């Protein structure tokens, strides 16, 4: 069967599901962050596919912005993780129970 828009969208959906699975399953903050990156990448793939098959470049501009925002987000997030590690000596979500009643 000829590869069309649906094929790319299904790859993107599967990648997004993998990212969600990582956020749910893993307990390490850094790996959770990597799963967030997977989800952002899935969105990027869907946008590029739509852009290609609808003959407009707007989707690719959007992906450009998403990549920039993701880079900024990773920098801030990892700085937060490092600050947290300095205070609590852990990067494990199960040890972060300050807000637990």
């Amino acid at each position, binding site marked *: 069967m000829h590869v069309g828009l649906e094929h790319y969208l299904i790859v993107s959906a599967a990648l997004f*599901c993998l990212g*969600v699975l990582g956020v749910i399953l893993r307990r390490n903050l850094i790996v959770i*962050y990597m799963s967030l990156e997977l989800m952002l990448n899935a969105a990027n793939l869907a946008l*590029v596919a739509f852009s290609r098959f609808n003959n407009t*470049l707007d989707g690719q501009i959007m992906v450009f912005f998403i990549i920039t925002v993701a*880079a900024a987000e990773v920098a*801030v997030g990892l700085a937060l*993780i490092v600050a947290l590690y300095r205070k609590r000596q852990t990067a494990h979500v199960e040890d972060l129970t300050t807000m637990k009643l």
Partner: protein
Amino acid sequence: MPLPDIFFYLFAALTLLCGLLVVANPFSRNPVTSAMFLVLTIISMAGLFVLLHAFFLAAVQVLVYAGAVIVLFLFVIMLLDLKEEQRRKFKMFGVVAGLISVGALGALMVKTIWSSGLGQGLNPQVEGATKPLGKMLFTQYLLPFEIVSILLLVAMVGVILLSKKDLK
């Protein structure tokens, strides 16, 4: 089967396999292994971008993600010296509930995409070369572009503030 289709299946399989190994690697729970498989995922996604004729974005993907973001991840992993991850067990209930909910989400999305017939009769012609993208970025999307530059500045200031020794 034409050659681009073969490459599509190759890169898609590689992307999904490496993505799975980022999330759930049966052999290692080390975050460094996850980061390395994330690099492979991103590079095979750049391959998919090339197949979609988004050449500029493929280059940016490799430069920014594989080059900058992953290096940042590895730096932080090195800084934190995580060894505890190996010992902890997955909770059975969490694993089962997570797999069921994500499976349901995935099945819903795949079914919706497959039955919608979105790609029927489309004739892709657009080329994501650098010149048209740059032209659009500096005319139609000039304001968002400038806002993103301010966002990067804010992120930089925030990171410097957060990584100070005595956080007040």
